[in-house]
């Protein structure tokens, strides 16, 4: 009797164990499929129509097709890229934009780059990195406000922690112990991203003098961010301008070569800049 009871007890215990294991296993096996479903696109393809078009194209093309150049266009590939074409940039000001792109380019190659090269010769890289970190640290209110507006409270908390740690231990932001020691990564947000987060489209592509590629939404978003930037509250106007200009210049000196490398790989550099900017903004808004 005792033995039976013991065995029954053990059986019940193992039954419970198995049921909980089954439930947790089912739970864990469903999570990846949800993520997968979220991540995958929901495009419906009319495969018959596509296939007919492919057949026609095949007949029109040369009879001898080597394996390398076969005309079989996988629908899945084409659809992946055509979906993104829906996000094609609306560009009514293309004449002005192209002109401004050339202006900014000349400004970079004629003025900014030679000066930045000289500057980077005089000031060693660790110093310039530290100055860059200081400027980034000062822009904390912009990031905090926009993270809160997007209801990203965890990121807002991380940003606050980073600011506190870097200003004190990192000595006014010249160091970044929050990232190097505590692995707290920055969460950059601006008002353009906030507007995009809540569904506002980018409007049209617009190249700003000095600032470079932008769009209607992001350019408008610079206005609220202006009031959140502590540098703008310094009394003397010329000091504000020169501080901001210096910050931008210092940042350029750290990335000499990136712009040139981008130009090297372009057939139509204006289109490349435009699409890269838009795709990059879309990614930043999503994350």
């Amino acid at each position, binding site marked *: 009797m005792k033995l039976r009871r013991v065995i029954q007890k053990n*059986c019940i215990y*193992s*039954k419970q164990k*198995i*049921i909980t*294991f*089954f439930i947790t*296993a089912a739970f*864990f*096996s469903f999570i*990846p499929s949800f*993520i*997968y479903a979220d*991540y995958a696109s929901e495009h419906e393809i009319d495969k018959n129509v596509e296939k007919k078009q492919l057949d026609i194209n*095949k007949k029109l*093309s*040369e009879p001898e*097709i080597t394996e*390398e*150049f076969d*005309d079989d*266009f996988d629908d*899945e*590939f*084409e659809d992946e*890229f055509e979906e*993104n*074409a829906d996000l094609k940039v609306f560009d009514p000001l293309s004449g002005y934009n*192209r*002109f401004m*792109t*050339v202006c900014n380019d000349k400004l*970079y*190659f*004629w003025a900014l*780059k*030679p000066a930045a090269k000289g500057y980077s010769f005089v000031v060693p890289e660790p110093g310039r*990195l530290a100055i*860059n*970190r200081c400027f980034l640290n000062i822009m904390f209110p912009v990031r905090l406000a926009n993270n809160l507006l997007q209801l990203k409270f965890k990121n807002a908390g991380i940003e606050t922690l980073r600011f506190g740690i870097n200003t004190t231990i990192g000595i006014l932001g010249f160091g970044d112990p929050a990232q190097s020691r505590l692995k707290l*990564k920055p969460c950059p947000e601006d008002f353009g991203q906030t507007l995009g987060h809540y569904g506002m489209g980018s409007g049209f592509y617009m190249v700003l003098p000095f600032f470079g590629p932008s769009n209607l939404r992001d350019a408008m978003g610079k206005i609220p961010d202006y009031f959140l930037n502590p540098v703008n509250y310094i009394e003397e106007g010329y000091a504000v301008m020169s501080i901001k200009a210096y910050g931008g210049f210092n940042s350029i000196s*750290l990335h000499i070569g*990136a712009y*040139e*490398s981008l*130009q*090297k*790989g*372009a*057939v*139509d*550099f*204006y*289109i490349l800049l435009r*699409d*890269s900017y838009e*795709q*990059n903004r879309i*990614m*930043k808004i999503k994350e």
Partner: protein
Amino acid sequence: MKAFFSFFLCLLIVGTVFADDDIDYVEKLIKTKLDAMILILEKDDITQQEKESRIIEIISPLFDFSKMAKLALGKRYWPGLSKKEKKEYSDIFIKRLKESYVNKFNLYTDEKINYKTPLRVKKKIHFPIELISKDHSVTMLCKLYKSKKGWIIYDAEVQGVSVISTYRSQFDQVLRKGSIDDLIIKLQQMDTKSADSSNLDNLNILPSTTSIKTIGNES
């Protein structure tokens, strides 16, 4: 018996989710190739050209260059080309692609690579990688598909910008107003080993072709 049956059932369900051989294979493949590439980039005792040729040797099998050439033109333009045009375009485009990849690798300066877990998206695999440098991190995404030769990269995204789609829109812009020969000429004129001066003069960025002389060309 019922307990054992349900236990095996759980194992089956869990097993099918976690035992994804393709993802493991892709992860190992890319990790070994990139680690080998970094070893070469960090070597000091060989010339730059030697480094470049070795890198091309290692990295080329990973990419499906002919597929990329096809996708860069897209369904709208590729089927309409003659065989000779296809070959000419593909050769020059693939050459430029390889050059641009090598240029990007030359910008490497002790970045740490953080491999994330690959994801299955429809029939393809997306492999996110993070390059952590001194002051910022760059997120990359390698997109692979299963070809006859195995899993192979057909596109890469850098900071959310898909390389193939940028070529698509550039080529679309050129082919809307010109022919494939114009595009081939532009690809040939692409100066991938240019000096520090601006390349925009060659790119005819303004609607009307005006020549702006650059002052102070540095070599």
